[in-house]
């Protein structure tokens, strides 16, 4: 379903983030991208999300060559298919929980009721609806994380990408996140988590662990 075909990415300052990486992900898989910071795993996520275009090679998702799509379609693809949980959450602090979660849906100009229903579903799922009108900057770390996850799910995406999701969490919250991950896995979404947190490497519901080092795949 997701295919990286001999992908290389060199940034403007000539750093080589990825060097001839080829990967395949099947639908419904939960994959952990293992590697230290700077190894290139975040770049892979960005490429799959269409946030970056590869310097060489092709990224194909669901038979769509997203690396070749013009921005207009790329963003649309991202909106329709991807839910991204960022390392720093990237929530907008002055907006409320509800508003933040609704953001991906704003350009769709949905009916008030439809929007409301979608929001309710996802807020309930991640147990954040009791704080829906509170400004994000006033939330605790765990609540912010759940908001970020809710936002990533509000458009019911096929693919969920998480970049170092537990980097800023204590053990209790990390375990909570893993529980959420388990729940998401059972909904047949393709999930890719980039992390160097060892908590993830031994989980039994993980399908694969792929290791990246210095922009190259480490054969296992």
């Amino acid at each position, binding site marked *: 379903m997701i295919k990286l075909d001999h992908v290389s990415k060199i940034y403007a300052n000539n750093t080589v983030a990825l060097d001839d990486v080829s990967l395949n992900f099947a639908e419904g898989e939960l994959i952990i991208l293992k590697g230290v910071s700077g190894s290139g795993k975040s770049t892979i996520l960005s490429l799959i999300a269409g946030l970056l275009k590869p310097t060489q090679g092709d990224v194909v998702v669901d038979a769509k060559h997203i690396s070749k799509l013009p921005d207009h379609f790329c963003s*649309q693809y991202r*909106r329709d298919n991807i839910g*991204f949980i*960022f390392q720093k959450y*990237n929530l907008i602090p002055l907006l409320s929980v509800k508003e933040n979660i609704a*953001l*991906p849906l704003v350009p769709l100009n949905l009916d008030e009721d439809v929007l409301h229903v979608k929001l309710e579903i996802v807020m309930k799922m991640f147990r954040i609806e009791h704080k829906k009108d509170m400004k994000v900057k006033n939330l605790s770390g765990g609540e912010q994380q759940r908001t970020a996850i809710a936002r990533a799910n509000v458009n019911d995406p096929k693919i969920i990408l998480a970049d170092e999701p537990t980097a800023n969490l204590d053990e209790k919250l990390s375990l909570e996140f893993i529980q959420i991950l388990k729940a998401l896995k059972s909904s047949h979404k393709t999930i890719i988590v980039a992390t160097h947190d060892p908590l993830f490497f031994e989980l039994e519901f993980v399908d694969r662990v792929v290791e990246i080092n210095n922009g190259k795949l480490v054969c296992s």
Partner: protein
Amino acid sequence: MFVLALLVGILASFFFVENSLKYELESTLDLQPQIIITKQKAGRDTTVDEKDINVILNIKGVNDVLSRVWGYYRFKDKRLILIGIDTFENQYDDILAKITKSTELNVSSMLVGEGVKKLFSQYYYHDYFNFILPDLSLKKIFIAGTFKATTKLESNDMVVMNKDTLRTIFGYQYNEATDLAVIVKNPEEVASIMVKLQNIFPTYKIVAKKDLRITLENRFNSKSSIFLILFIISLFTFFMIVYDKLSGLSSTEKNEIGILKAIGWRIEDVLQARFYEGLIISLSAYVVGIMAALLYVYMLDAPLVKNIFLSYNDMDISLPFIMDYETLFLLFLLSVPVYLFATIIPSWKVATLDADEVMR
């Protein structure tokens, strides 16, 4: 946004005042006869002789000729307009016609406009006033009443009295008049009659009403053009400021846009959001500016701006409420699209930020 509102407000007040005054003056103008004949001596207006009337009446197309006796009288730094009427003549001016019908003005009484009444009362002239004649003798005229004319401009400083009495006050001879008013019912014929008149009286000054109107309009236009140029210069500066301000984005803003793009907002979506933002700002500035101007002009009576226009009269006039849609359209075009154009490039710069760069 407030700067724009202020600019719009100032320009709007200017236009409103101009429109109101224009309306007043045009209404006054409408009441004038089509052709006015004055004699000139050394390039300055002087009196005409009533015996010319018969010659003019013989011209085909001329319906009537009236001799007018009117002039200015200075009292305590204010200038009053004195108008003489003759109860037996046809009147062209509706107000004057009404007056001649309603009141019996005898030779020693007059009707005064509201502004004049106030002025006289200030100096304790409640029932009569002493005019000083050219030979320095006094003539006492009783105030028979006040009148309200159709336009404020007219009535405020006007005094109406018997023609012959006025002649005495001005020191005219018995058949002298200030000017002759020629009534021509058919507007198409005015031009040809003027030519004929000029041929008969080569040295007289012959002015048509339409020329007056055009002169007035041009005078207004030149005044407002100067003001408009000032406005444009400030608008241009404003444009530069807006452009500059919006181009320098704070890092939080950049971050936010990056986030939006990362979660699936396309470039058009960001551009659209910015456009609506700009639209709301400029529209509200426009509305606020117009409201402020309306308040300033029609409630507070436009203290400073009015004086730019009103050079001809020292009396104070309150401005009638005139709503001109074209002016509103013009102000709209000068504010909203201009602001929006200023936002295009900055918004575009923002919208095309690479989401990824911003979030690293």
